[in-house]
């Protein structure tokens, strides 16, 4: 049965969702006595109007791309990996350990090692829930949530214990060696004569994230493994018929998912903080769920959704600066977008589908 053209599904509906979210947010702003148009202007100008704004926006975007990919690959196998938060935290641990263990001479050497360790640690953290799901039937949603808590406790323990710098108050590791410093956009673009703000956290990891988007696409739609993952996600019984081993697919998919989440650490831990701090993930693991949902588990969609959330994060901070809008209100606006684009998707989808069906009828199709 023909429902809607594809462009409506992938573009029109998310845009409508966004519009509604912005309208409601505007009403919220009006209610607290702020000018919504000015606020929107601030958000846009603050996140895209200057190279520093762009630098922050893309920094957040990079985080969300990684966690969105983590959620996306799991979704293709119809698994709801809520553990991105914990996996990204462990990825941070892996990155921190390898960067602190070796006096890295140059980032070109440090980055591959960080990618390897971040991915490995993230994957390892996803492995236990995956194994429990595959072999014992423990529900992945429950176990991954639990593992977020375990990860938070473990990180707390390590960062207040063995990894902490003696005499320092903050629950954080020592700073990574100079040689582990990833080029920021400023440093990357200067040789080309492009002046990019020195003070924005966006760094080389953004390019790694873009590369990962491409790898994701190849993996899902061009490889046999992706074929098996998608087949398993669509129908487990059919996968079994075809000789696809469900336990193996669950575990492999979750390992990849955890690795993507763990890779986020090269951005926030290696690229930005240059040391491992407590609660470094700051909810990006959960935002990944919304990003993947909104991006329909497709790399282009994930990129756009991640960019949108990057804009919301950076623009939200600008609202605090320029309009003294309380942090909580900014969170409300961000939550509205997540709610409307993710959870309440059907609210808009149904009427739009009806409209299209009516149009088909009118055309006598």
């Amino acid at each position, binding site marked *: *049965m*023909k*429902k809607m053209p594809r462009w409506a599904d992938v573009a029109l509906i998310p845009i409508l969702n966004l519009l509604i979210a912005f309208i409601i947010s505007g009403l919220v702003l009006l209610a607290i006595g702020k000018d919504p148009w000015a606020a929107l202007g601030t958000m846009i100008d603050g996140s895209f109007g200057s190279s520093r704004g762009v630098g922050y926006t893309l920094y957040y975007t990079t985080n969300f791309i990684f966690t969105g990919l983590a959620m996306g690959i799991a979704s293709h196998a119809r698994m709801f990996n809520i553990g991105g938060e914990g996996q990204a935290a462990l990825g941070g641990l892996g990155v921190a350990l390898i960067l602190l263990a070796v006096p890295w001479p140059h980032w070109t050497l440090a980055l591959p090692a960080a990618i390897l360790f971040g991915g490995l640690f993230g994957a390892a953290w996803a492995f236990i829930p995956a194994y429990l799901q595959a072999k014992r039937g423990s529900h992945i949603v429950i176990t991954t949530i639990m593992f977020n808590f375990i990860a938070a406790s473990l990180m707390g323990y390590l960062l207040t214990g063995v990894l902490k710098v003696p005499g320092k108050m903050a629950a954080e590791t020592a700073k990574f060696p100079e040689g582990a410093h990833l080029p920021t956009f400023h440093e990357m673009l200067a040789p080309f004569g492009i002046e990019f703000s020195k003070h924005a956290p966006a760094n080389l990891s953004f390019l790694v994230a873009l590369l990962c988007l491409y790898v994701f696409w*190849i993996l899902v739609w*061009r*490889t*046999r*493994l992706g*074929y*098996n993952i*998608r*087949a398993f996600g*669509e*129908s487990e*019984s*059919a996968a*079994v*018929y*075809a*000789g696809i*081993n*469900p*336990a*193996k697919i669950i575990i492999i998919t979750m390992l990849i998912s955890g690795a993507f989440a763990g890779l986020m650490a090269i951005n926030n831990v290696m690229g930005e903080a240059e040391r491992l701090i407590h609660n470094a993930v700051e909810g990006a693991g959960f935002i990944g769920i919304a990003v993947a949902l909104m991006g329909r588990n497709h790399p282009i969609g994930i990129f756009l959704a991640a960019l949108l959330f990057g804009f919301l994060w950076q623009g939200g901070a600008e609202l605090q600066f320029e309009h003294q809008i309380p942090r909580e209100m900014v969170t409300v606006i961000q939550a509205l977008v997540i709610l409307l684009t993710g959870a309440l998707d059907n609210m808009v989808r149904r009427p739009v589908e009806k409209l299209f*069906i009516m149009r*088909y*009828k009118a055309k006598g*199709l």
Partner: protein
Amino acid sequence: MATATETGRQETAALASPAPAIELRGISKAFGPVQANKDISIRVEKGTVHGIIGENGAGKSTLMSILYGFYKADAGEIFIGGKETLIPDSQAAISAGIGMVFQHFKLVENFTVLENVVLGAEEGFRLTPSLRKARKLLTELAAEYELNVDPDALIEDLSVGHRQRVEILKALYRKADILILDEPTGVLTPAEADHLFRILEGLRDAGKTIILITHKLREIMDITDTVSVMRRGEMTATVKTSETSPEHLAELMVGRKVLLRVDKKPAQLGKEILKVENLRVVDEQGVERLKGIGFNIRAGEILGIAGVSGNGQSELLEVLGGYAEATGKVSLHGEELDLSGAESDAQSRRLKGIAHVPEDRHEEGLILNFHAWENMVFGYQNDPKYNKNKILMDNKAIWDETQAKMDRFDVRPPNPRLNAANFSGGNQQKIVLAREIERNPELLLIGQPTRGVDIGAIEFIHQQIVELRDQGKAILLVSVELEEVLSLADRIVVMFDGQIMGERLSSETDERELGMLMAGMKQGADA
């Protein structure tokens, strides 16, 4: 003037015969661009059994769902007992005296029969009075219509036939005068079906009106008084059953003449391909599903497995297909297969030349949300010719092959990019068949080859199976359609309760004998 006379005549007619139990006028219903029901008008007389026959997707179920309040018609009126009635939901249908027995029963497994009958129709706060009333009614009905079921038995302990009776009792407890049965015999043995028909006859004689939805011509001929034929959302004819023939009905359903028997040459038997000995399967609940069965298939032979569904046929296919654990011995070309249920075995079976068209193409044979071209290699995705290297698939090769196969099997529309879900049942089955048969297997396992397939495609599918046999391949055919097994198979094995009840050459047996075996009555059949 002529009009006045006409009107007068109609009124006289209306006076002469009582108002029909149900009359539908100009019912139309569309789902998006699909017109499921197109201007349908039908009269169902009181105290008759009215059959509605049509291919899958002809719109029978949609029409009945409108009558039962599940869907709202886009246009048209419903008259119950001569009065126009609005049926916005099933509650309204029940109060209008309509009862429905679904294909998939809606019973609470761990409730007793009595509790299920009363469920949703309890009177008052306390349950006991309702239960007492229902018990009395059940006793009466059992005596009157052979509707005997133990009121205190748990549903989960009942056979399928008994469960169906509980559904009928539920409708009668709600004072239904009009009973709609949707494909009621699909899950029954011939004996159970006969029993059901006796019940229905009794109800009809007591003045109830019965609408029977089916695609089986034999049932229509056996029990209905009137039959309406649907095709592509339209009501093509309503005829008295006594005045029609199966051939005529089939033609009305399909819109052209149909070969009901399969034309095939005598089998040229070759050497033994498959040998099954003492095969046992125990399911996760510890129930023995296959109780030590054995048979063989030779090259150039179609072995049919007859039986009511759920008697071990599915397990047999799963074991041979390589994705269920079993004990015993299965050999292909004399080489023993590993039955440990190792999860990669479905792959190794394919490599050994066993192709498998599964019983349920939606759950197993296809990924409905995959494109046709992706489905065309499903199960064979590891074949080097579909892969560029160890990691990347060769989508171009798959695409080209899909186009060729779609041409050869006349899949419509021949568009490899369409999702499997968007093909009709027959064309979906052709995709699966094209994939499996074109592998040129030594042994083809095929389950329910024509379930949910339109009559036009059935012919084609049967031809393909016979052709494969004539190429000297071995075929294991599992079907719950006795007619299909009889006409296709060279040799028939009947399964009941995980055992083989008997083996017959199809040329030397008939439906009656097989029906007895399917019901587990060995002596009766042998006698």
